């Protein structure tokens, strides 16, 4: 009985310790798992679904020299921090996304006819072609709108309202942030780690 009474009269100590414990260890884990911008490559994806942890693990199997970690985030990750995508190196975007954010992207050398060229400059390398339903990294990105639904949910074709909320199917491209420190000759960066990582993504099944 004395122990129970002691617990309730000291509950504020238990709650305080819980909060302190969470704050301290979350901060320590951020230090352990994160790296300065010069030592990491960040991928932001706007596909309906992204297996971010699995993709990061796969990409880290072939880390470029000088890179300590690779971070993969869906765009929803930046919901509370609108500045986070500005620090990314690689984007997975639709043509519409690219046109709306052209000012952030770096022009690149096209590698195929399907790459996205706008005003004479290539801004996106084809990753997934919606028309032929073919592309790379399908194991890690859900390219179809219904991929955004929870597991087990079914899209009802007759329900136009539900379909509209999920958006239309589209092709996806790999683009690069013009301010990325990992683009090599494209923007006179010290290394081309983002190029290497993008190349790796395009070879994924």
């Amino acid at each position, binding site marked *: 009985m*004395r122990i129970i009474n002691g617990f309730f009269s000291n509950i504020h100590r238990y709650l305080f310790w819980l909060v302190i414990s969470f704050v301290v*260890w979350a901060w320590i884990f951020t230090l352990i798992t994160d790296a300065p911008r010069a030592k990491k490559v960040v991928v932001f994806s706007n596909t309906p679904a992204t297996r971010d942890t699995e993709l990061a*693990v796969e990409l880290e199997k072939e880390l470029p020299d000088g890179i300590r970690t690779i971070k993969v985030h869906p765009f929803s990750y930046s919901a509370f921090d609108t500045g986070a995508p500005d620090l990314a190196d690689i984007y997975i975007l639709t043509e519409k996304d690219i046109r709306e954010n052209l000012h952030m992207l770096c022009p690149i050398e096209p590698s195929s006819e399907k790459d996205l060229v706008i005003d004479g400059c290539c801004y996106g390398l084809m990753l997934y072609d919606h028309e032929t339903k073919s592309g790379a990294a399908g194991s890690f990105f859900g390219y179809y709108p219904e991929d955004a639904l929870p597991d087990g949910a079914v899209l009802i074709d007759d329900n136009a309202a539900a379909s509209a909320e999920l958006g239309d199917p589209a092709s996806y491209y790999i683009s690069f942030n013009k301010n990325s420190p990992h683009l090599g000759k494209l923007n006179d960066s010290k290394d081309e780690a983002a190029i290497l990582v993008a190349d790796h993504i395009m070879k994924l099944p």
Partner: protein
Amino acid sequence: MESKRIDLYNCKELKKLKRMLIAMRAAAVFIAAVSLAVCIFFCIGTNTANAQSQLIKTLIASTLGGWAVITLRITAIRHYKYACVHYEAILNGDEEPFDGSFEVSDVITRIHGGVSFYDVKALDDEQKTLSLYSGCRERFDERAALRVYCVYMFIKAYEVRYEDN
């Protein structure tokens, strides 16, 4: 008729309390050290694939370890610490004798930052209320007591009738 003095406090008991206090503090330090070591172990084993699960395991180990130390502190450590301070004060204080008959109440009083005790009424002197440390309750026979010796109004020793047969 002779009387016999019975001491409720002694140095041997005080040494035992001090040993228990040291043991409880050592246990708290041990629990904290083990908890920290487990957390560090989880941190070292962290990589991109398991970062989330390792963080959760670390939080659980840290929280439970901290709660165990807090519980030990608010129960055992405080109890022995206050008991040691009380014992030392009683053993080193000046005694004041009271004669007559005495009645121990059934209610325990606890002071924040102090020990728990029973109120003792001196039946021959309605103005006097003495105190009996709860740890000494079993050793004090109020029916046999002829005289009590008090320090800071706490009963330290008492005299009973001693018949030499």
